[in-house]
């Protein structure tokens, strides 16, 4: 691996039009910093060795000030910062102002999952799927606490704030599947609020929209509604109990009583989760008050299958 490649590997790959601009600013600042670093650090070490003195020190008579020098190292960084600021500001505006023909995708964050809704909400999905070569604007909000969407390969990031809309935009340039992180600390499963960005061709995108219209299966809802963050399917306990084999069993409750996990109990647990908390688990689940009846049924059916 040669030096150039080593340098380039400092940053992850670029997969959007904006990434190159962000990286340009990065490299400008990088080389400026390397330049100053290569003055300060070697000079420190050189002076320490060059002027080392063993035994009793005598009178020293180095300069105690130099108007020229001090002006010099005040003025040069000052000019430098104007330059860097302008680069950063121009890039920031490019990242901030979405093109007018950008397609809007609505993003909702919650503890601890994402929902992306396309085409005026007729399609919802837990992964972000975007077409290549077209500007996409994410209009984002949160249902509970502050989250943040971060897609390293696109170099974009924006917080999602409850009761407000924030937005970011990008134009993907490479087909592939990339990571999307939540970067604003949001509680227990913060580190599992990770999903994928799938950049696909225009045809695949249209196909994706068509395929995902209409009713969702219980399995889809499991990821889409964020159940996945707290409930596993393989029997291991996460923040909430695993769904494996849960249907029809007797559940010991925190208040000492117990209940059979039948349709009614599961529905109750979705709409008002904290009324019947299973022993040993925190009352941490958000209430899905507005979940439609058919979705609840689909989830119950899905749980029945997990014997």
């Amino acid at each position, binding site marked *: 691996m040669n030096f150039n490649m080593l340098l380039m590997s400092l940053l992850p790959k670029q997969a959007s039009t904006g990434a190159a601009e962000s990286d340009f600013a990065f490299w400008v600042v990088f080389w400026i910093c390397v330049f100053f670093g290569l003055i300060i650090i070697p000079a420190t070490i050189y002076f320490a060795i060059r002027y080392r003195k063993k035994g009793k020190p005598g009178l020293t008579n180095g300069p105690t000030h130099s108007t020229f020098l001090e002006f010099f190292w005040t003025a040069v960084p000052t000019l430098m910062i104007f330059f860097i600021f302008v*680069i950063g500001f121009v890039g920031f505006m490019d990242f901030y102002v979405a093109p007018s023909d950008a397609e809007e995708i609505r993003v909702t964050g919650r503890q601890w999952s994402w929902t992306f809704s396309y085409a005026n909400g007729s399609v919802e999905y837990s992964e972000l799927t975007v077409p290549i070569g077209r500007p996409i604007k994410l209009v984002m909000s949160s249902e509970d606490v502050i989250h943040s969407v971060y897609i390293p390969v696109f170099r974009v990031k924006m917080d999602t704030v409850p009761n407000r809309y924030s937005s970011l935009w990008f134009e993907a340039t490479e087909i592939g599947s990339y990571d999307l992180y939540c970067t604003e600390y949001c509680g227990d499963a913060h580190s599992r609020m990770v999903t994928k960005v799938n950049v696909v061709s225009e045809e695949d995108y249209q196909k994706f929209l068509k395929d995902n219209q209409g009713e969702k299966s219980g399995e889809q809802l499991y990821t889409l509604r964020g159940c996945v963050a707290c409930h596993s399917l393989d029997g291991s306990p996460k923040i909430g109990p695993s769904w494996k084999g849960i249907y029809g069993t007797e559940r010991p409750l925190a208040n000492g009583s117990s209940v059979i996990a039948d349709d009614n109990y599961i529905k109750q647990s979705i709409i008002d989760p904290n009324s019947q908390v299973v022993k040993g688990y925190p009352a941490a689940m958000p209430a899905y008050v507005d979940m439609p009846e058919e979705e609840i049924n689909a989830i119950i059916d899905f749980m029945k299958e997990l014997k």
Partner: protein
Amino acid sequence: MSTEKNYLNHPKGLLSWLITVDHKRIAILYTIVVLFFFFVGGVYASLIRLELAFPNTMIDGGTPALGGATVAETEGMYFDDKTYNKIFTMHGIVMVFLVIIPATPAILGNFLLPILLGAKDVAFPRLNLASWYVYMLGAGVALTSLIAGGVDTGWTFYTPFSTLSKSVEVAGIQFSPVIAITLGAFILGFSSIFTGINFIVTIHKMRPPGMTWFKLPLFLWGMYATSLIQVLATPVLGVTLGLLILEKVTGAGIFDPALGGDPILFQHFFWFYSHPAVYIMILPAFAVISEMVAVHSHRNIFGYKLIGFSSVAIALLGSLVWGHHMFVSGQSEWLGAIFSFLTFFIGIPSGIKVFNWLATMYKGEIKLNTSMFYVIAFLINFAIGGLTGIFLGTLVIDINLHDTYFVVAHFHYVMMGSGLFAFFGGMHHWWPKIFGKMYNEIVGILGCLVIFVGFNITFLSQFYLGLQGMPRRYHDYSGFGPEEIFSRFHGFSSVGTLIMAIGFVIIALNWLHSLFAGKKAPSNPWGGLTLEWATTSPPPTHNFHKDPEYIHGPYDYDKILPENIAQKPADKE
């Protein structure tokens, strides 16, 4: 042991320490607790690194016990995510509020400030003692949150996450750990304010005749700037945390969006204090380094006025830039641009200082002892920490790097690599004066080198992790991202932490050895010209046997030979 009376052995008894108003004894009291909390915070840090070194050993959930902590029988230690979140929160709170903010001002500042002025004590000795007790009270209140299982909000207490956190029942009482810890931080703020008021008044009103502002040792300029921030910014933290508590208790609707509030307003409130707080951490470090670099280079400091002014400039500018923590928070983008612009200006005075220190070393007669090694380590760390700050101040780059490990590494370089390195350097520099004992130079240098190496391994790896997109405050990184890069560099980082821990053990042993078996320190082991070297080591209760005469500037190494100073009349008892 010598039989002469000094502040350490006269008067005797535990009570005489607990009701002392002697600034030197209060400094020792602070030393004990701050170092204890540094140990606690260090343990938390080690636990974080331990967890991240072995990511795949985590098993979700686990059996909740001891507030969630469990020990796996499969592959070594691990924590579930709730426990991990509590650990990094406690690491942040302990290190910021209990260690770095009080460390240099309350220990070295308290000890040296009056002596450097030739005074007998700070202006308000009883307030000074009160600040220690308030600190202890605040620490106690904050730590009660551990009874309820700890806090997992992060040290920034962002709403609405912090207002949504639930209270737990402890012994039949509803107890909110978040309220406990914010109340603790609120109380700690008063301790900080008391110290600040004391220092400002002392520097203003208790200078000896002839010591004008431009003849002050630079340590005092740094302390003055620090104290200004402490006095002016800390109350805002007070009202922020107060409102947060009220928000939790009454649902006031000021910060909680569900009730009509504005969570971004909380961030403004919080960072209005917490950004200047960074300068409360770093300005004392500048103060310490300015002294050490001059004494150990035996050189008149280069550009005295510029160093002094730049401290005050940093204090003022530092209060104008808090919004750079919020570039992607949804604050107004114009405001973001303004904050970015102002942020860069901080770089100028910081850069001036670095170049002036370098110029001070030029043509000096440098003694490569422990303190000088700390100076060199500081300069290197601060160069890296400061320069990486430019990345984060640049708007478009910050969009990418915000809340990643790049930020974590950057602020550790500034707070720990610079702030705490300067503190430890200062402790070595003034150790003979404080305790009257010499330590072993070779071991001291070794300790410095080991923590320097460990520190750089730990946090250089984190720069790379951040560039690769590793978000901060992640408990687990298995299953996504460039996993092998993440795991390799987290591994390096953890190894670095281990090395650092060994370094701190070396330093601690060296200090303990010095206390119990060290050689008696002379009055002026380094040949310094400031007034603290004109009294005995350790100083007598009222600092000077005979009032010191202010006859030369603090850095007149070009006019006065160090050996002449050792024969000053004040030294002969």
